[in-house]
């Protein structure tokens, strides 16, 4: 957090309502995302109880396990879930567009769309990760055979969860995280983890203010938890008797219906909340770099989808090289994502202005046709002086670019009482006079920053077979075994 974010929280307390911390939407929203709300059996790592899911707000599908301790019912559930998820994957890829071939001549394609999954909170992401882990190694043959769709679901669930780790990816979104990227409430981060309370602050129902709506949301009877953990009172007073009745009647359909109705009652309020969250996010204009990040998502999806058939389940743990490579990739993605958001959104750039890595103000002097003739050939080097009240912490010589138009580059010449003197070095055209409109004129509002949105080349990591001995040497190829297939899921 920063003073800026803290101040936003204070303003929210004061206004008794959430305040914006973004002026544009920083995540992609697909036209028809798959909303997926999981519930897990209390006390178990990943024993599914129910999932409400679908791409049509008016028509959710409820999948439930009437006796969550029964292994066969659990795998039947996994197969049903797999069907919906795999259909969503296939239905959301659009066409394959041809791209210019890669440097080594291999053909490249990219799907025009990609499947998006929305869960209510980070617990939903963790659930998908564990569900993936508990199903992707299952065998479709032999004594513990499951439907072929079950391990496929496991690999997709794992893939979605891994993409979620990547800053800026929108393939798997948690509604609470997406909202918190755009609004600050007058409660703590911990309390923001409750989707109903968070939405209560952002868009309270008529007649209530933020704190009142959030307080109401903390009553589990009125607002059942958004999962995957259930309300213990619901478990004890409603679910347990219904499951017991199901057992006692040997799986009578009416008893099963009772379990399903109870679970539907817990899930439906969250279903509405997630769609409500998406309405709020959709109402924001999309940030300029969102399509570019979604393109990376589509690349990742295309690759995974096209190699799915010959691929094997993701390993239980990364090898040393894979872990280093992944970490490096995540760090780079984080840097790029932070910078892109700042360029897209003056409210995010304000953070950098506050910490001195950017400054904004009004141009007081401009010398648009200034030439630097110290070298062999004259160079166009216009200068502008910017009056700013910002606490600038950029040394002379620091390279900067314009926040509004990053192609406009320059460097700091001096910073004093009159403002910051910037010499422009790029983004002015090719001639010895600047293209019209490229050099800010006196009176213009400008913002310059030392942030860059540059992407560096891929890091060099040893190939699998060259893993240094300090990192365990080359890892054995992962081969799924019978033991994987037989692993208990109880």
């Amino acid at each position: 957090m920063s003073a800026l974010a803290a101040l936003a929280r204070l303003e929210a307390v004061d206004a008794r309502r959430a305040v914006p911390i973004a002026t544009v939407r920083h995540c992609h929203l697909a036209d028809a995302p798959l909303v997926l709300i999981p519930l897990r059996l209390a006390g178990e790592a990943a024993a599914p109880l129910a999932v409400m899911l679908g791409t049509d707000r008016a028509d959710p599908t409820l999948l439930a396990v009437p006796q969550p301790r029964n292994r066969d019912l659990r795998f039947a559930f996994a197969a049903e879930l797999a069907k919906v998820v795999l259909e969503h994957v296939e239905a959301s890829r659009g066409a394959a567009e041809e791209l210019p071939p890669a440097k080594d001549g291999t053909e490249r394609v990219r799907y025009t769309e990609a499947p998006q999954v929305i869960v209510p909170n980070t617990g939903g992401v963790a659930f998908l990760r564990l569900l993936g882990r508990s199903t992707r190694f299952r065998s479709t043959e032999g004594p513990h055979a499951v439907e072929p769709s079950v391990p496929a679901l496991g690999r997709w669930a794992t893939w979605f969860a891994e993409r979620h780790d990547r800053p800026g990816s929108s393939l798997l979104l948690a509604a609470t995280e997406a909202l918190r990227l755009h609004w600050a409430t007058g409660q703590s981060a911990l309390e923001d983890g409750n989707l109903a309370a968070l939405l209560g602050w952002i868009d309270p129902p008529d007649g209530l203010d933020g704190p009142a709506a959030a307080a109401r949301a903390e009553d589990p009877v009125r607002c059942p938890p958004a999962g995957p953990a259930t309300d213990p009172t619901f478990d004890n007073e409603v679910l347990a008797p219904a499951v017991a009745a199901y057992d006692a009647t040997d799986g009578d359909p009416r008893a099963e219906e009772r379990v399903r109705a109870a679970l539907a009652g817990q899930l439906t309020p969250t279903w509405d909340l997630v769609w409500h969250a998406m309405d709020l996010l959709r109402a924001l204009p999309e940030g300029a770099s969102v399509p570019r990040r979604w393109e990376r998502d589509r690349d990742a999806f295309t690759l995974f989808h096209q190699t799915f058939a010959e691929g094997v389940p993701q390993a239980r743990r990364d090898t040393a090289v894979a872990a280093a490579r992944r970490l490096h990739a995540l760090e780079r993605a984080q840097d790029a994502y932070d910078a892109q958001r700042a360029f897209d959104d003056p409210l995010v750039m304000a953070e950098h202005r506050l910490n001195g890595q950017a400054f904004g103000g009004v141009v007081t002097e401009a010398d648009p046709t200034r030439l630097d003739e110290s070298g062999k050939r004259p160079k166009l080097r216009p200068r502008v002086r910017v009056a700013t009240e910002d606490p600038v912490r950029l040394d002379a010589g620091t390279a900067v670019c314009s926040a509004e138009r990053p192609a406009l580059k320059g460097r700091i010449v001096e910073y004093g009482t009159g403002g910051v003197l910037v010499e422009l070095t790029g983004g002015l055209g090719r001639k010895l006079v600047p293209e019209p409109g490229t050099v800010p004129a006196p009176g213009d509002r400008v913002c310059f920053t030392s942030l860059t949105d540059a992407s560096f080349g891929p890091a060099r990591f040893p190939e699998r077979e060259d893993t240094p001995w300090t990192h365990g040497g080359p890892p054995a190829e992962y081969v799924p075994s019978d033991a994987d297939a037989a692993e208990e899921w109880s």
Partner: protein
Amino acid sequence: MTDTAPALDRLRAGAPPRNHDARTIAALTANPGCARRGLLDAAGVDKDAVARHLGFGTPFGQSQFAITRGNAFEAQVKADGCAELLALLRDRLGLDVGEVGYDDLDDEGGREFRHARTRKLLARALDDAQGTLFDHPLLRLDIGGTPAYLEPDVIAFQLAGRFHVVEIKSFAVVDGQAEPEQVAAAARQAAVYVLALRELVADLGHDPQRVSHEVFLVCPENFSNRPSATPLDVRPQLAVLRRQLDRLTRVDAILNGLPPDLSFALDDGLGAAVRTVEARYAPDCAAGCELAYFCRDEARACGATGALGRGVRDDLGGVDTVEAALDLARGAADPPAELAETAALLRTAARLRAEALGGAA
């Protein structure tokens, strides 16, 4: 018994005292500066009942599914004199655990009696260095000048002359990893047992280091019911625990500043009585203290910035109330010299926010 005992009994207004357990002690150390919690816990006040009476009950209940699973797992691990546990330690961890005796200390009468028996058995084991498992021992730890009894459902066994605490938890360890918060909580609790056991060992005239800082966490493996054991070094938790317990405001000091007729009887005066004792609310109170909703309400009512998170208060340069911070941000108040820097930062932040939002409108 210490001389604060009568005063503490009076605070409870006749209600029976509630026992500390490792969870509450571990939670206590999470907020050592809170006099309210320190006092109520020392007096053994039923904080849950207090919170409910005040209309701020927290949903601290546990699902019967979770309880059933936890009990079943523990019973399975401990069945037949901990046969499964021993097999696990020998075969999976390759430990040279010899023949062991098994003593179940449950259902042995009152607290004092059980503690005395725990002492006796431990003294014997220390002397003859025998491998011994204790189930349900009763330990004692001094908390803020008042003894607290601990009823660990853990077992200590002796390996190469050192005792190890075993902590049985029913959360899953998947591919060698579990939820970090759960592991952290288990480690904090285990550290409480290690500390209590060390005090007892020292009290018996032995080197407290005969209780190892290495504990064993026994959890279901992956998605099965099969137990797995993971050695866990709780030295960091021990260090924190010791430091926090030392720093715990001494209960007698808190009592000194309070009206002599104060009591936490469940009557109309309860709210005022609780408010008399100073609290230090932070959002993470919700994870470990029954009074969290009450204290949160109080903190919010007086506009405490700490209610927004510890980090928020730090970002605001330590300014305590929302109003004061907003006044600084809006330039409404002339800041005292020590807040000049914070005030400048907040004013800049306010200007930048207004500028960015105005530009977007």
